[in-house]
């Protein structure tokens, strides 16, 4: 018989960094950044809060009714989206508190936008 804690909500961390800076990273610098994030993700997992996440490439496509624009970054590069993480937390404040502990956020080179994931609509 399992004991499942009361239903936790899921939250999306939209990771925002200066994409112009990231663009110029050496392979070594990129790896160091990933090692640091990996350590932080481990602390999320340690409290059984980590669901998933990935870094994103710097460039891609922007699609709307009018056009498909290539290259980029498109929206303000200083806080461009560089990755995402999904966690489980009790509530939005707790989720934001998680985000606050990221070493890159504390250093000032990263911001995290925390958005509750809505889940299925009630029947």
């Amino acid at each position, binding site marked *: 018989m*399992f004991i499942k*804690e009361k239903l936790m909500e899921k939250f999306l961390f939209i990771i925002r960094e200066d994409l112009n800076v990231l663009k110029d990273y050496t392979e070594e610098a990129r790896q160091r950044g990933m090692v640091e*994030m990996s350590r932080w993700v481990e*602390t999320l997992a340690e409290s059984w809060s*980590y*669901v998933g996440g990935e870094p994103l490439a710097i460039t891609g496509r922007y699609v709307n009714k009018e056009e498909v624009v290539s290259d980029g970054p498109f929206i303000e590069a200083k806080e461009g989206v560089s990755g995402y993480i999904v966690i489980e937390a009790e509530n939005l404040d*707790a989720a934001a*508190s998680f985000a606050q502990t990221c070493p890159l956020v*504390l250093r000032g080179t990263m911001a995290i936008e925390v958005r509750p994931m809505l889940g299925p609509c009630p029947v």
Partner: protein
Amino acid sequence: MDTIQQEVDLLYKSHFGKMVSTLLYFSRDIDLDSAEDLVQDAFSAALTAWRKDGLPSNPAGWIFTVCKNKALNKIKEGKRFKNLFQEETTPARDPATPPSDPAMRPSAFDDYQLRLLFACAHPHLSPKVQVVITLKYVVNLKVEAIAKILAMTVDGIDKLLIRARQKIKEEKILFEEANTEALKPRLPVVHKIIYLIFNEGYKTSWGKELIREELCEEALLLDRALLNSKIGNQETAALYALMLFNAARFKARFGPSGDLLDLEEQDRGLWDPELIRLACHYLEQSRGGPASSYHYEAAIAYLHCTAESFAQTQWAAISRLYHQLLQLHPNPFVELNYAIALYYAGHKVPAFETLDNLLKHPFLSQYYLLNAALGKLHFLEGNGETAKKYWEKTLCQTNSPLEQDFIHKMIRRLK
């Protein structure tokens, strides 16, 4: 160092935190920093007075009376004060008389420390931040020590504390007579805090530093206080068992020159049989209710601690326990341990499949333990070149000199 100094030091170590918590409970108008200062001053006063007059019959009570008197004086500097202090009209109570106040009996202190611990388990804070604030106000570590333990900057810890302190200050738990029922919903959160504190103390990256062992001891003491109170439950017991099993192996984890030893290399004769026996007792006590993650981890630790040798370990049973734990709480970092257990249980194909899947995960691919494990298992399979590749990757993924030395040691074995 004279005996009075020693007495005061011992008392400080065991009672400082509890006295701070008690002061906070007695008066709403004292903030956390002031409470710490007051208790600090009282200890200094004790040292001076006792050197002159000798040790009193109830040293803790003596110090606490002085604390309360100082607090009262501080409060009288223009603030309103609450019930119990209103009874004291004369600040200069003779500290030598044994206290009639039942709140100054030793066991009462534990209650207030637990109360503060539950206050730190605030639902608007993440577990990591709850740990930081607990380390500061319940374990009474300095910010520099907390930063070192968590591998963060002092600035970072300060930032986390500022926001968290605001939340805790407003907590009714600290000031009101909270009943057990009101506290129960926070118990799982409190368990997590204790578990995470123990984990920090158990990490090997910094080596044999004393503070690590002290952290583990603190976690054990907090859990034991929970068990002794009316609030603890079977999960509390499972957590206690888990921590005891791990604590039993403390002395074996480092070699004579302080080098890191993995499970296979450890001298099992150095494992503490008393702690293992005690852990088994609590594991028994934890049965009968629903299984929590602590139950699974304790059961796995039990199988390790009771195995005659690395080779004779019941790896199949351990892998089954990990499998069930992962059903309850999916976690790629625990999946790594599952894969390792599968390998030693003889299920090599699923073991390597799991590990290769983990490598595809961008965060896990940079995880030093995953690469170290792949190195070891490929080494055991006779794939020297592959093993070396993974070990060299591992070297880039850890800053700990101890861990790096360990990997270098493994690489040397290839020759």
